């Protein structure tokens, strides 16, 4: 195998299955499952090799000219490995989960086809080596997730899909405008550690600020920055594995990852600080964190509460990005991974309750811990992780964000962190208490039994695995290649130059 073309292989490992799955007839369940799982496993191996090579300092790049003056660039750098690694691991688990979740449901061929497309776009986003390539995959992501959001085809789903499209296409347009303007100012912008805009003459700095606002605004739609978050709670009508993917890896995270790329690899964190672009971002992220947490308090629908929680938690990433200093950077990058692991667990659990017990509302969850102990244990671990209780993954993020805020000379961010943690506790702990310490009061709305385990093993294995990662990422935070160590590696490279 030609390792030089590794980024292409990584991309192809989900693009090809997507095409093949579309071609497979609906009823060939075994073939589709085999294809899905082997592709997902292969991708983990490929990303693993890629990460290993990047750690050794070998950057691989594939480039060809799309049109004169603009290249199509796929590049495996440390940042790309961060996001690609997250996507690859969670894709495997979510595929397993989706197979169990959609057991016997119609249109599975279409679903898994777009599912793979969606992951392929995410891979493209992580590997994109310049803004234009990024934009291509970013738009592809919008198009491939829409069919997943409206998968059930109900009126509510279609309405949510419409809102989703409106928001994301408008965001995409802002992003496109920003990229085009930036092209005019500085030409084809490659992603590069510590950024590449420093050389731009001072006369175009005001223009750069406008462009920054456009780019962040466009990315902020997917990253669900308040007030651009309206689509996310509505998109909850999608099936649980889609929500899990949307919230943990694909859409929301793509927006956040875009913000990371723009700040670190386009503008460069030090140049962004000089342009005074970081403070507005801090304020926007802080407002989002508080607003999302507050709204989450009032939701009785489990998935809606989780959705508002995502709005709040994803902004931790933007918050960390905006804190000038390597520690804040570590906090942002590590949370990109940690939030993904924890939130995917929570959505798996929500799906398990819905599929097994027919429970969608928090008020119906009383006593579910007895009926579904493993799922509820996973939920408890992830919820405590989200609150930031040590030694779980969320604590590591929160700790680095907190120290980062102090290093950046912005102690008021600590108030945001504390307030948000208290609010997290206020909306997660009551659920945990209901699960374990309340007696079941009514029949489960729609109970199904699955033989030996509390629910289908397809649903249970991913849930328990990601919950385990939530613990491991916290307790073994200093393990080589742990999220924390990788984030530290990237931060070191972003500030050294």
């Amino acid at each position, binding site marked *: 195998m030609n390792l030089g073309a590794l980024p292409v292989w990584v991309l192809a490992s989900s693009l090809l299955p997507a095409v093949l799955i579309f071609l497979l007839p609906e009823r060939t369940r075994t073939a589709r499952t085999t294809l899905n799982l082997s592709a997902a496993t292969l991708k983990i191996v490929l990303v693993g090799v890629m990460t290993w090579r990047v750690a050794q300092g070998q950057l691989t790049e594939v480039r060809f000219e799309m049109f004169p003056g603009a290249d199509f660039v796929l590049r495996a750098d440390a940042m790309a490995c961060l996001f690609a690694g997250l996507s690859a691991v969670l894709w495997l688990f979510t595929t397993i989960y989706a197979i169990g979740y959609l057991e016997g449901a119609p249109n599975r061929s279409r679903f898994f086809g777009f599912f793979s497309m969606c992951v392929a776009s995410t891979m493209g986003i992580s590997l994109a080596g310049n803004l234009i390539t990024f934009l291509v995959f970013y738009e592809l992501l919008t198009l491939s997730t829409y069919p997943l959001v409206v998968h059930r085809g109900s009126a509510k789903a279609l309405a949510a899909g419409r809102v989703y499209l409106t928001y994301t296409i408008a965001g995409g347009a802002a992003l496109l405008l920003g990229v085009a303007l930036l092209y005019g100012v500085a030409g084809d912008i490659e992603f590069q550690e510590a950024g590449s805009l420093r050389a731009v003459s001072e006369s175009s700095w005001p223009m750069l600020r406008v462009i920054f606002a456009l780019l962040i605004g466009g990315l902020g739609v997917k990253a669900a920055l308040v007030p651009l978050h309206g689509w996310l709670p509505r998109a909850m009508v999608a099936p649980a594995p889609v929500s899990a993917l949307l919230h943990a890896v694909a859409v929301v995270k793509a927006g956040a990852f875009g913000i990371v790329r723009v700040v670190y690899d386009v503008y460069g964190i030090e140049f962004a600080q000089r342009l005074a672009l970081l403070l507005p971002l801090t304020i926007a992220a802080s407002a989002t964190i508080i607003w999302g947490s507050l709204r989450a308090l009032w939701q009785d629908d489990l998935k809606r509460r989780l959705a508002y929680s995502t709005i709040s938690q994803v902004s931790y990433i933007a918050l960390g990005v905006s804190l000038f200093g390597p520690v804040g950077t570590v906090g942002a990058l590590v949370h990109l991974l940690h939030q993904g692991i924890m939130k995917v667990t929570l959505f798996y659990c929500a799906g398990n309750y819905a599929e097994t017990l027919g429970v969608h509302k928090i008020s119906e969850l009383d006593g579910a811990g007895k009926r579904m*102990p493993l799922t509820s*244990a996973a939920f408890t671990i992830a919820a*405590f992780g989200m609150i*930031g*209780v*040590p*030694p779980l993954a969320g*604590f*590591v993020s*929160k*700790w680095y964000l*907190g*120290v980062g805020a*102090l*290093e950046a000379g912005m*102690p*008021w961010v*600590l*108030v945001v962190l*504390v307030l948000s*943690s*208290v609010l997290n*506790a206020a909306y997660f*702990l009551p659920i945990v208490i209901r699960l*374990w*310490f309340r007696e079941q009061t009514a029949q489960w709305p729609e109970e199904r039994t699955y033989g030996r385990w509390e629910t289908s093993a397809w649903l249970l294995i991913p849930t328990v695995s990601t919950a385990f990662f939530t613990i491991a990422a*916290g*307790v*073994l*935070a*200093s*393990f080589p290649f742990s999220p924390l160590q990788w984030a530290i590696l990237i931060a070191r490279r972003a500030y050294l130059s």
Partner: protein
Amino acid sequence: MNTILLVSAVMVPLLAAFGGLFAFARPHVARLLPFLPLPALLAAIVVPEATRVSSSWLLFSGNWSLDTTRATLLTAMSLVWCIGGWHALTSAETRDRLPSLVLPWTAALAGNMWAAVAHDIGGFYSGFAVMSFAAYALIVHRDTAGARTAGRVYLVFTVLGEMAILCGLLIASHDGAGDSLEGVAAAISTGQDPELISALLLTGFGVKCALLGVHFWLPAVYTNAPSPVRVVLGGAMINAGVLGWLATLPIGSSVATPLALPLVIAGLVAALGAALLGVMKTRAATVLAYSSISQMGLISVLLGVALSAFGARTELLAAITVFAAHHGITKGALFVSIDAIESQSRHWPLFVLPALALTGAPLTSGALSKLMMKHAVYDVGWSWLSPWLSVAAIGTTVLMARALWCAVHHHTITHTGTYAVDDTTSSSRGPSRHPMLAITSTLLVAAAVLWLPRDATGSIGASGSDALALLWPIVAGVGVSALLWQRDVGLREARSNNHVAMATARDTDTAATVTQDVPPSLSAAMRYARLASGAVAHAASAVLETSRAIALGAVAHVESFADPERSEAWLRRHASFSFALLLLLLLVALIVR
């Protein structure tokens, strides 16, 4: 070998907790509960200070070892956990539903042991948090309305406390502590915001060890938790908070902190005020809860002194450590014995020795710790505290007498308010298996004096003048108790039968009502105070409450028991509010500094 012992102190309970995840393993793990703390006990006794365990893979590198302070506290904590585990196996309240107790019990134990050995911020804080949150499940084990209310109050205080600790550690880490817990004290001494970090850590850990103002959860929790849980909460976990203080605050540093005097005063108010309030309670566990607040007040006093004393680190540290260890074991034994007495009142002699130890009678661990305390206080020039400590000892004696009285008359007293416990469990108890356990725990208290380090004073109150100084408060306390008993303060009516039915009917919904009702006579004043500021509200309502309790006690009216309860519930609610406000104020101080 030492390394393995140190690691197994934490890993054995942790493995047990892992086993507790699986329903089939739970009954087997349950039988091991008294033995799980044994590796920790052994480690505390034999592992030398030089033994260090660290792993570069763990969060913040994990750095485990035991110095004298930690070894002393760990000995006491693991003994209490053993007694508690044994108690859980035999107590009528828990033995039938033991499997559901296994996971939180082992998790809290593992957390406690983890915090006891970890010298890195990540490890210590992790253990502390695991212990705190697992304790919630222990507290609500009885699943009564009162237990739920208590659990909720506990959670609110715990979450806020965790936040205070997090902020304190974050700022300290930024000020140069890095990831080492010992570095925090240095960062406080040399960094740019010593008062802020100290205040955050004082209140944060203070939640666990009942610092005045953040103690409001404690009486409700001790009253409503099952007896074995009281043992480990009041005997072991409380000392994790003390350890948090000792490990992070700059004791005996060269920089005096302006927080020292307020801390001493808060400690004295708690030591005396809790005795006054506790005497009004009708349930032995509640009385002991107030006794804990009072004893922890003494620790606050010592800590306050320690924070202002230049260079007297060793002596004060030893005094606090010995006091905390003594209090932990003694309080554990007291909780065991009142449970024995409540099931059969003829077991009352079991109460006497731990009670005497707590009051500081000669030849007990209490005498040792009291004398160490007095010497330490004298040596650093705070001798004016000495008479107050004697007054506190009188209070302790009265509290002990009251607790014994309540335990003996357990079946004839009517309880109201949040402290009313669903009595179906205790009245339908099977034959008691407590005496052996209670005897053992009492013997432990007697033995405690033998192993507590005694280099600081070399005396355990055997000399004549010391014995006199220790004895007179006890005699005075017994006298006061006799006086109160003769006047039968407020109990005559409470014992009359027609109130029993009423109170039982109320049991189910009192918890809900007491948290909402504001006593009308106080509401105007208290609302005003609340508007003024959260901190002022604390002080004002504590004064109001105290004077009111004294007045009501004199009147000896049956309602006197309902009303302080209500005002307390009000306090609990608003105290958490003002705690949050305080936290916010501290952070604002950080921003504007």
